């Protein structure tokens, strides 16, 4: 036990901390606390050698105090009594600076609202020892090492207790386990690179051998790439590449939601979801291919996530886009009350599933089958450095990475040099030729699922010959 807290924080320990905080506050008012305690075991390797093995304990405690409408907050990682007292006093000191006080009573209409209960905990994951973790890492290194290639990677196993509590009686607690496994294999000449990764709460769903072999296979097939002309290509984006391209629609930067995905913003004429009619959004308008659906559901068996926000408000299942039609945009509680007559928000968790529905004759095919059906095109493993160039259209630029191949007459014929691309996910996902099977992609800490998609006229703008 460390400071009374075990490596993994339980619900009772969270309640005890909140009781302490409540006993320390002065001046009455409202107190909100969110707390995360995460133990991680990390093994990293590079050049086919184990580089570092680590155990870490990360604590994040956020306290907000509101007295008479004035708000002050503080973030700390101290859970000892002196640290909690200092945090509470700091928050109360900060609220004195809130000089434009809004005399509101903090209400949480969702206090009694139940949350969904996705399974995000695995005993098998939690109980993995450091020795077992390094055994797994060794097994991922050896295939590359025996072939004289360099393997670099990371295996991280985490267990986290996450809670939101407030003085209105709200108590939300969720235990989560987390496995992040990624491998990059490069040849010694530096002319070939392959990558594969998986992220899930359940170690049983992580196939480390498959990850290592996939990265190895891509490396071996990507050596000595040749240059092909920039231009518009039919591309097969593997699921990871689809996620890399699509994520800017929902997120503007790591950890930041894209405010252009908010309903008030679209209705004020800003962002890609603003209608040509003043004061309206594009809700109920066709914006993507009719086969595509964008949804988020904490109970999703592959893309489940913690079922409440940092305010404790429950996430509900939502179909943002249904058969290509925009159905919802996110909104906060204030907007819901003022504009929709609803008491609760519709929040963007930034976890998602890009799903597809068949239109009858077609079915979801494997990447291999997408290749076979392609006369000429490119197979893309993933994208990197994706940056939004124009927020009104979500036009993005970035680079292909870790494996790019030319497809000719239904076969991969040669590895090609990487490209810089310029494309908008909202344009590209209207130029779909075929959709593949979905899989969970690697975007920790978020849970995201995307299919492989074959897209025509994808703009590869210029050569980028890095490997």
């Amino acid at each position, binding site marked *: 036990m460390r400071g009374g807290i075990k490596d993994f924080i339980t619900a009772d320990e969270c309640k005890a901390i909140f009781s302490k905080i409540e006993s320390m506050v002065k001046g009455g008012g409202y107190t909100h606390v969110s707390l995360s305690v995460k133990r991680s075991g990390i093994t990293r390797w590079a050049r086919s050698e184990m580089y570092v093995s680590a155990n870490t304990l990360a604590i994040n405690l956020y306290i907000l105090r509101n007295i008479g409408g004035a708000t002050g907050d503080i973030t700390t990682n101290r859970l000892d009594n002196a640290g909690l007292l200092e945090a509470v006093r700091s928050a109360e000191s900060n609220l004195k600076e809130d*000089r434009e006080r809004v005399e509101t009573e903090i209400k949480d209409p969702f206090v009694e609202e139940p949350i969904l209960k996705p399974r995000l905990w695995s005993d098998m994951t939690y109980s993995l020892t450091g020795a077992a973790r390094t055994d797994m890492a060794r097994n991922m290194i050896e295939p590359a090492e025996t072939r004289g290639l360099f393997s670099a990677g990371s295996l991280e196993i985490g267990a986290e207790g996450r809670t939101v509590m407030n003085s209105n009686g709200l108590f939300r607690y969720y235990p989560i386990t987390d496995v992040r496994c990624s491998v990059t294999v490069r040849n010694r000449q530096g002319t070939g690179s392959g990558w594969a990764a998986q992220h899930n709460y359940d170690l049983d769903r992580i196939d480390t051998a498959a990850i290592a072999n996939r990265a190895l296979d891509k490396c071996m097939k990507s050596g000595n790439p040749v240059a092909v002309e920039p231009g518009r290509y039919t591309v097969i984006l593997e699921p990871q590449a689809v996620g890399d391209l699509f994520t800017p629609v929902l997120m503007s930067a790591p950890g930041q939601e894209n405010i252009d995905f908010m309903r008030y913003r679209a209705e004020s004429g800003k962002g890609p979801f603003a209608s040509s009619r003043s004061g309206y959004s594009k809700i109920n308008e066709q914006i993507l291919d009719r086969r595509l659906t964008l949804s988020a559901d904490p109970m999703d068996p592959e893309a489940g996530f913690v079922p409440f926000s940092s305010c404790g408000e429950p996430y509900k299942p939502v179909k943002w886009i249904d058969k290509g039609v925009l159905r919802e945009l996110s909104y906060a509680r204030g907007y819901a009350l003022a504009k929709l007559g609803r008491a609760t928000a519709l929040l963007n968790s930034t976890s998602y599933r890009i799903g597809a529905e068949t239109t009858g004759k077609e079915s979801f095919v494997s990447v291999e089958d997408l290749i076979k059906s392609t006369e000429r095109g490119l197979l893309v493993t993933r994208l990197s450095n994706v940056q939004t160039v124009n927020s009104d259209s979500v036009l993005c630029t970035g680079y292909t990475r870790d494996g790019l191949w030319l497809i000719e007459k239904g076969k991969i014929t040669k590895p090609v040099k990487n490209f810089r691309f310029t494309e908008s996910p909202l344009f590209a996902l209207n130029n779909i030729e075929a959709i593949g099977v979905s899989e969970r992609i690697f975007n920790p800490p978020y849970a995201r699922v995307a299919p492989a998609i074959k897209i025509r006229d994808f703009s590869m703008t210029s050569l980028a010959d*890095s490997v």
Partner: protein
Amino acid sequence: MSRINRRRFIQKGTAALALATVPFESTRSEELLETATRSNAGDTRTLAFAAVEAAKGAGATYADVSFRSTKREIWHWWAGTSYPVPRGVFALSAGVRALHNGCWGFAGIDGIATVDDMVRLGQDAVAQAKNSPVAGKYRSVELAFVPVVSDGTWSTPVTIDPFIVSNDEKIDFICAITDYLGRERVQVDFAGAGLYLIKDEHTFASTEGSYIAQNLYTTSCDLYVTVEKHFLNESRASRKANFITASGAGWEYVLNAPFQDKASQFVEDTARSRYGKPINVGRYDIVFDAYSMASILDATIGPATELDRAFGYKANEEGTSFLSEPLEMLGAYRVGSPLINISANRSMKDGAATVGWDDEGVEPRDTALVTQGILTDFQTTRESASWMAPYYNNSGKTVRSGGCAGREKASIPTSSCAPNLVLSPGKDNATFQDLIAGTKRGYAVIGSQASADTQALNGSGRFGIVYEIRNGKLGDVVQGSTFLFRAPELWRNIVGIGGNNTAESFGLSRGGYWSEMYHTVSAVPAKVTGIAMVDTMRKA
């Protein structure tokens, strides 16, 4: 402490600035040093050596321990919204790193640590290391020599501790700037400001007997404006000021920022960038201002000369380097034109990465990374410096770390971090205007941000403002352009650089949102031939 009067502050002229600094108690760095040693002595030393001894007892051939006590104060405000309210962060962290049979083990915790915790961390770090060999194969790790520092203390030399400046003064400052930007310039839709103040108390101890305590300050300020839609093309523009960024200094950095000199130009440039003629795609001579060159340096040679990255130790996380054969390239590879001299340091005045000692107890040395265009060194830590031993020995240099070990908090494994970088001025006293005057046809790029791919090889730059150059004079504004480059070609094609009087420093971060890791890049304007200019939104 008397309050700054907002009206006095925004009066033009140096007198107002001088008055603005008078009311504060100046806190000498010696006083800060005393505070640092008092707060870190006794208990922290006991905790540190408890961990170190535990690691030794468990079989470590080397171990070090770090503590951090971090305080952050964050202010965000957008004119016309509610009153600025501070947000605070304070955090403790501790970590032990141990070396056993060539493998590193690490154990770290957030929050307050007891002696028992530190003993457990020391033992756990060694246990982690013992798990590591691959098929019985052990790495060979040598740590470059570092002198023992048995009782080292250092503090960022600040004149005004930002954490003793009253909230009233900070609010007055933020409101003064944003009011000025918002009201004095009718085109401004809204203006915003952010203040980020960081104080880090670092403590380091090692099995070699070093014990070091440091107080590090970072003061950072962001200013943003958004200018209303242009009446012709309805294009809005937003920009962030680069005349005030981040610095290893105190509140004096904010007060002494050239606000009066540069704010008007900043707004004018933002307004001008909304409307212009389209770019004629092609290759041109480009004159980059100092900020653009700093950004290019930070995106290319900066990461490319991290030795662990060049050797592939960051291949799975951040990427690799186009300087992919370090030992073969050193002393031979032409990175840039003979005009180019680039160095790394953690010692420059007001440098955001300036320290007394790095996270391995190494007193940083200035490192000449590129000398007259030739690659001559890399950014190193104690382990990676030993990889350079053949080169250093042949060159008559001591095998010594450059002092580039660092990380955001003590509870995560030690890594390499970005030092301060310097693109040295040229010997001629050329100015930005001189470089333009010497260009018959091309473009001038001001305030652009560059980014590059995972090898720091191919990159692009945008934002900022671009002017056409015709016959040595600035012409029309060009809208919606991006410059593309391949790093070696860009640096080799530099045909002119600014002199001493053109050097400017900018605090940059390669981390994510609210990253704590800042470094300073000092650069001069430069003229580069053969750079591709394209339309930002043009597809193939």
